[in-house]
C-alpha cells in the first residue's frame, strides 16, 4: 500500500529504504503456547543467544522478580501505600522485549510498570524511592507506583486507566516517523513498545490505536501481556472469540483485522519472546509499521497487594509456576554453557545487593517538601496567572514553599 507519508514536503521519497533489496515479508504466525513445546524446538532462537545476552536477560528478570518481592515486603511493613501491582511471573515479557530496545526507543506501560521501568534502565534506587514517596524518586514522589516516568530512559508512563497509555505510545511513534518523513532525519527510527493486559483489549482506545498505527505505518509495537485475568474478570468471560475459534479468545488475531501482523508467543520463555521482539522491532525500524504481540503469561501474585486472589484455581497457578521463566533460562544457560553456576550465583548476589541498596536509599531519602506542591503543575509557571497586585502568581513569595494562593 503506497503511503502518502513516504514523501517529504517537496515530494522526495524520504526513506532510502525503498532502494534496498526486498526482504521476506513477516509471516503471521502463532508461536506455540501451552503444552507441546520441548526445549529443542526453539533451536533457532538458541543459536542467537550469546553468553552476554543470556546473562543480561537473566540479570534483568531476576532484578524484576527480587524487586517486586521486596515491594511486597515493604508494603506490608508500611513503607509504601496505595495500589501496588506486582509483575512477578511476567518477567520474560519485559526482559525479552525491552532488553532488545535501544536507549532512544520508548516504552509505555500501565499501572504494572515497575519492571518495565527497570528493564528500560531506570535505576532501582529511583523506582524504590518513588514507591516510598520520596523526593529522590524518578517522579519526585509525585507519581507513585502507577506512574513511573523517565525522560532520560524513554519511559513514557505509568498509567492508571488501562488503555490511556497506548495512544501516548502511538504518539511517540508518530514523532519518530514525523522526524523522518517531515523533518528529513534519515536516522530517526526509534521504536515505541506499549505494554498492557488482556483486559485492555476491550477498551476502545486499543482499537483506535491499532487503526492509527497501521494507517500511518508507525514504528509502534503493541504488547499484550495476556495473563488471563483482569482483577477478578477472567479473559474467557470478558472477551468474545474470533468467528470459528471455539477454544480461546485470541487477541493476536485482532492485528490482521487492522492491517498488521499478530503474533502469539509463549510469554514464560524469554528466548521466544526475544525472538519475536527482534523481528517486530526490525520491522518497525524498516518503516514497515506496527506489530501486535500477544504474550501468554501469568502473574504469580494477585492483581494488586490488596487483591485476595480467590478466584484463580490452585491448578492454574501451579501450572504456571512450573513454567517460571527464571529457572527456565537458568537451565538453558547451564545446559548450553552460556553461564556457569558461579556466574549465576554472582548475578544473584549482584541483584540482591542492588535491591538492598535501593531500599536503603529510599529509606534514607528525604520526603518531598511542601514547595513541590506547585512547582511542576505547569511547564511554564505563568499558567497560574496574574494576581491582584499585578505579579504573576509564581512570583509570589509563597510559591516555592507551596503556600501561595494560586486561584
Amino acid at each position: 500500500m503506497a503511503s502518502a507519508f513516504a514523501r517529504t514536503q517537496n515530494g522526495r521519497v524520504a526513506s532510502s529504504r525503498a532502494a534496498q533489496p526486498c526482504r521476506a515479508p513477516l509471516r503471521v504466525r502463532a508461536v506455540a503456547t501451552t503444552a507441546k513445546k520441548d526445549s529443542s524446538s526453539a533451536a533457532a532462537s538458541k543459536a542467537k543467544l550469546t553468553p552476554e545476552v543470556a546473562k543480561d536477560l537473566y540479570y534483568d528478570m531476576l532484578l524484576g522478580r527480587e524487586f517486586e518481592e521486596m515491594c511486597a515486603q515493604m508494603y506490608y511493613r508500611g513503607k509504601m501505600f496505595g495500589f501496588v501491582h506486582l509483575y512477578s511471573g511476567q518477567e520474560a515479557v519485559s526482559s525479552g522485549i525491552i532488553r532488545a530496545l535501544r536507549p532512544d526507543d520508548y516504552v509505555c506501560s500501565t499501572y504494572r510498570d515497575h519492571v518495565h521501568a527497570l528493564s528500560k534502565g531506570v535505576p532501582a534506587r529511583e523506582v524504590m524511592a518513588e514507591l516510598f514517596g520520596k523526593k529522590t524518586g524518578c517522579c519526585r514522589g509525585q507519581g507513585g507506583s502507577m506512574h513511573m516516568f523517565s525522560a532520560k530512559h524513554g519511559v513514557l508512563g505509568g498509567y492508571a486507566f488501562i488503555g490511556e497509555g497506548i495512544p501516548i505510545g502511538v504518539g511517540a511513534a508518530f514523532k519518530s516517523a514525523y522526524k523522518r518523513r517531515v523533518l528529513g532525519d534519515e536516522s530517526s527510527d526509534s521504536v515505541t513498545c506499549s505494554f498492557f493486559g488482556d483486559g485492555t483489549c476491550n477498551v476502545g482506545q486499543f482499537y483506535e490505536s491499532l487503526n492509527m498505527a497501521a494507517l500511518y505505518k508507525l514504528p509502534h509495537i503493541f504488547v499484550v501481556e495476556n495473563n488471563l485475568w483482569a482483577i477478578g474478570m477472567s479473559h474467557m468471560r470478558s472477551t468474545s472469540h474470533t468467528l470459528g475459534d471455539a477454544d480461546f479468545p485470541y487477541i493476536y488475531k485482532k492485528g490482521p483485522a487492522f492491517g498488521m501482523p499478530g503474533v502469539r508467543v509463549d510469554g514464560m520463555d524469554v528466548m521466544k519472546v526475544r525472538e519475536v521482539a527482534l523481528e517486530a522491532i526490525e520491522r518497525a525500524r524498516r518503516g514497515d509499521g506496527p506489530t501486535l504481540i500477544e504474550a501468554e503469561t501469568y502473574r504469580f501474585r494477585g492483581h494488586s497487594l490488596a487483591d485476595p486472589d480467590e478466584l484463580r484455581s490452585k491448578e492454574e497457578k501451579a501450572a504456571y509456576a512450573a513454567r517460571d521463566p527464571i529457572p527456565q533460562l537458568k537451565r538453558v544457560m547451564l545446559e548450553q554453557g552460556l553461564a556457569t553456576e558461579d556466574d549465576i550465583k554472582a548475578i544473584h548476589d549482584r541483584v540482591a545487593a542492588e535491591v538492598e541498596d535501593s531500599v536503603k536509599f529510599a529509606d534514607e531519602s528525604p520526603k518531598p517538601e511542601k514547595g513541590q506542591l506547585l512547582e511542576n503543575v505547569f511547564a511554564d509557571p505563568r499558567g497560574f496567572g496574574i494576581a491582584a497586585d499585578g505579579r504573576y502568581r509564581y512570583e509570589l513569595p509563597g510559591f516555592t514553599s507551596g503556600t501561595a494562593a494560586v486561584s
Partner: protein
Amino acid sequence: MALQTSIARCNARVGRAPAARVAVKPQYVRGAAQVVAAKKKEIMMWEALREATDEEMERDPTVCVMGEDVGHYGGSYKVTYDLYKKYGDMRVLDTPICENGFMGMGIGAAMTGLRPIVEGMNMGFLLLAFNQISNNCGMLHYTSGGQFKVPVVIRGPGGVGRQLGAEHSQRLESYFQSIPGVQLVAVSTVANAKALLKSAIRSDNPIIFFEHVLLYNIKGETHDGDYCQSLERAEMVREGTDVSIFTYSRMRYVVMQAVAELEKKGYNPEVIDLISLKPFDMETISKSIKKTRKALIVEECMKTGGIGASLSAVINESLFDELDHQVMRLSSQDVPTAYAYELEAATIVQPNQVVEAVEKMCSKVAAAV
C-alpha cells in the same frame, strides 16, 4: 445589522492590551517625498486563525495539526484551508474519527518533542477525549515530576450556533475548568484570535483554545508582524465607571449591543473580555471592581459550575469590601439547547437582559446611597 454596528463600535473601542501595540507604520515610497499610510486589510476570523497557524508552522517545523477533516477538506471552518498543500499530509494530519485516540497520540507526540495543534471539529466532540485531556494533557507534567511537558493546543468551535441542536451547541469551558494543569483561553476578535493562537502554539503549557461557531466570519484587522498576545491577560473593551461587566467569546458582542442601549440611557459601563478563562487575570479584574464597585458576569456557559460561578466566588472572597452590590451573573439556562429558534434564544443571554441587569444594579445602589 445591530450586531454589525455594535461589532464595529466594539472594534473601535478595543482598548490597548497592556503590552504595547505596534502602530501601523507608514510606507515610504522610494524616491518620493510623500509618506503613504499603509492600508490594513480586513480579514475574517477563520483567516486570522489560519494565518496564525501558517506562520507558526513556518517558523517551527515541529508544529503540526491533527484533527478530523483538517487536511484535504480544509477544516470544517476553513481554519486549515489548503495548509496540507503547503505542509503535506503528515503535518496537517487527517485523523480517523477517534477523539480519545488522536488526542492521546497528540499528547504522546508533544511529550516527545512535537508541538501539535489538535482540532476538535466541534469542541463538544472532545467530550470523547476527556480521558486524555484530563489525565494526560493536564496532569502528566506534574505526575512525571516535571520530566515531560505537553505543549499542545486543543482548539475548535464551541458555543451556541443557529439551531444546531443540543449536542452541537455545547460550551465545554466549564467542563474543562477544574482540570489542573491546563489553561483555558477564549478568543473573540480577529485581532486577538490570531495573536492568542500564536501565543498558545508557542506556550509550553497545554492550552484549551475556545473559538465560537458564530464568530468565524466576523471581520477585522490583525496586529502587525509577529504579534503575540499574553494568554493570561484580560482585554479592556470599554473603559467606564458605573459597573464592571466581565464577559468572553461571543457574549462580548451581546454585551456591546447592550452597552449601545445603556449609553443612550446615560450609563457608563466598563467592559472587560476575560480572554483567560483559567487563570483569571485578577489584576485587571480587581482594578476594575475597585473603580466601579459593581460586577456583572455575562457568559454563554451554563450557570451551574460555569466560568461565572468560579469568577463570582473569587470576587466574593477577595473583593467583598469593594462591592456595593452582590455579584450578578447572567449565564445560559441549565437546559439542553433546543432546536427551535425561540427556545434556543431563551436559553442564552440576550442584550435586553444585560441592560436590565445593569439598570437594576445601578438603581439599587443609587437608592441605597
